[in-house]
């Protein structure tokens, strides 16, 4: 099983190095097959214009069968974007990271999805239950059972 995740990630990494990331997304570090960091920036007109956020991917040995744990990095002065689906501890409520994850999705496709999630946001505001969630949230967002109720933003 471990061979699947490392082989797959190796291929994804090669592709990123060869073709580069999509516009606005930069690979920060991918030293091992457990944790990768990307920076993400929304291009064009947007409420997040010229703001750069850092995304962290954590992979389990059976990735891509199981979804990666994706969070915004909120340490060392980095912040999570103010967005109705992003909690202030960096956790992201997105169905493709939970029950709609499919093994054909990749790290880059997740980045693009999150980028467009930010781009389509009209108003910067935290999730309604932010305080309550952040107080009790587990370290790994995959342990949270999100209710995906709103896919308009």
């Amino acid at each position: 099983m471990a061979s699947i995740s490392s082989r797959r990630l190796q291929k994804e990494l090669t592709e990123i190095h060869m073709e580069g990331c999509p516009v606005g997304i930069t690979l920060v570090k991918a030293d091992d097959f457990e944790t990768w960091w990307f920076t993400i920036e929304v291009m064009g007109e947007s409420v997040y214009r010229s703001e750069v956020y850092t995304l962290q991917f954590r992979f389990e040995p059976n990735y891509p069968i199981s979804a990666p744990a994706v969070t915004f990095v909120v340490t060392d002065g980095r912040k999570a974007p103010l967005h109705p689906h992003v909690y202030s501890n960096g956790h992201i409520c997105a169905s493709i990271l939970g029950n709609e994850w499919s093994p054909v999705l990749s790290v880059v496709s997740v980045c693009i999805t999150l980028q467009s999630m930010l781009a389509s946001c009209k108003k910067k505001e935290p999730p309604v239950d932010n305080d309550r969630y952040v107080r009790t949230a587990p370290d790994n967002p995959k342990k949270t059972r999100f209710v995906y109720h709103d896919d308009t933003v």
Partner: protein
Amino acid sequence: MSSDYEYSDDDVDNVFDDDELMADGDSDGDDGMEMDDFKVVPKATRKAYELEYDSLSQPAVEKLMEKDVEYIRGILGVDDNTASLLLRHMGWNKERLIEKYMDNANKTLVAAGVIRPEPEAVKPSKRPITRRATKQRSPSPPKSSGSFTCSICFDDAPGLTPLSLECGHAACSGCWEAYITSKIRDEAEHVCRCMAEGCGLVAPDSFIRGAIDEDGFIRFQELLVRHFVGCNKNLKFCPYPSCTNTVSCPSGASKSSLTTVVPIVSCGARGLASDGAPLSQSQELVKRATGKEHKFCFGCVIDSDHRPVVCAVATLWLKKCRDDSETANWIKSNTKECPKCVSTIEKNGGCNHMTCKKCKHEFCWVCMGPWSEHGTAWYSCNRYDEEAGVNARDAQSKSRASLERYLHYYNRWANHEQSAKLAQDLFAKTEKKMEEMQITSTLTWIEVQFMKKAAEELDKCRVTLKWTYAMAYYLAKGNQKELFEDNQRDLERAVEDLSELLESPIEPENIPALRQKVTDKTVYVQKRNDIVLEDTAEGFVEGRWAWNVSVDGFEAPAAEPDTAL
């Protein structure tokens, strides 16, 4: 069911002779394995407290599933894989499936994950659903044309075998195996959808069989059986750990029937051959000697025999026993409640002039009346006839009386439960005695079996007795209750007598006498147990029992405030 006292072979025979779910259970005769010591009643007549049920092994349940699949295949003209997927999607409800399918075949097939949502008509099902993708069908075609690149692991080694469902979303066999195995093993999920994003196609059995290893497929079949059993209210899975048998009990399946019957069933783990072949007599003996019957209630969650009392009352009692923990008991017996705010107060010293810490109400500990009425009559409470005090004391003595009443029943219940737990010891001790007897006397192994029989019967009766106390606690006062308690007393006495006999020391010279006595007593105890069970069961059918609390499915109790707790 038949009592296991008779070494019955019913279960084994029925299951494998009949495919019918509701097979008739008493067609077979005796098998000649009784011991001459124990004259048992012929089992042709079903006792009032027994009901018809069938024990099914996993292969037997699979046979039932196959029959349903065959039926659907015949009616809808689809292949086995499609019929199975459709049935699983509709929770094995054949009528609804046919109705929906006739209404809109395409929509039903899409919903069940058999075909993709496309405007074109249903594909003819003759085509094999599994196939090797021969040409490049990956949704994101890799640049190196000609070779296959798995879209999951991105591997493009030449030896890779691409696999796909009808939708053509190909992945290498290794990824499919990892994916399906993780679904089955980690998620206990029998529905394995295509891995592609947004594709709702479900992998049919033949595909799964080809994709994963033997162990995984066995687990997959187990999941299917569990799903089938879960969907059918006439079936229930044996709750014992790692037992894979199923019991079919249509007469205990409806909620309304639970007021008249106590559907205690046994999954047949003790006498059901799992491979389909009946056991030989010697194997049978070994199994009976070592195995333990998996008895459970078909109607509720209690996984042991709770006859004679019906499910609703048994559940009520267990809940009460859980609530009334030792702590609660102690609080009730050692504290009083403030007459005003009813907070619990323990008096551990000082005078009788109490001031409630919570509501500051001042009252007299002795008479529970307000202190203001006591004036200067310190320590000599003379206010007995004051209404408030009388009421307070009344309420308290009532609570105490009802506690005492509960404890009376609970102690007896707990006592029998404890004895049942010690049954293992008793069996071991009996075993030893039997050996001793074989050494000290001329009796053979088969002739000392009477000890074991007695111990087993004792164990069974204790279970009955235990539950009679739960029943008696909730029975409304009256003649019926008295009759019930008479029967209970007779059984209790018989059980204690037999118990004493079993414990008595063995002396070589009185073994024959002991054997005679034990045998007689065993038969008597068995009879008393039968009487209690039968009479109670008949009472339920006749609607003879009335309760002192409201019980689901029964008439509301007549006003009898002093027994309700």
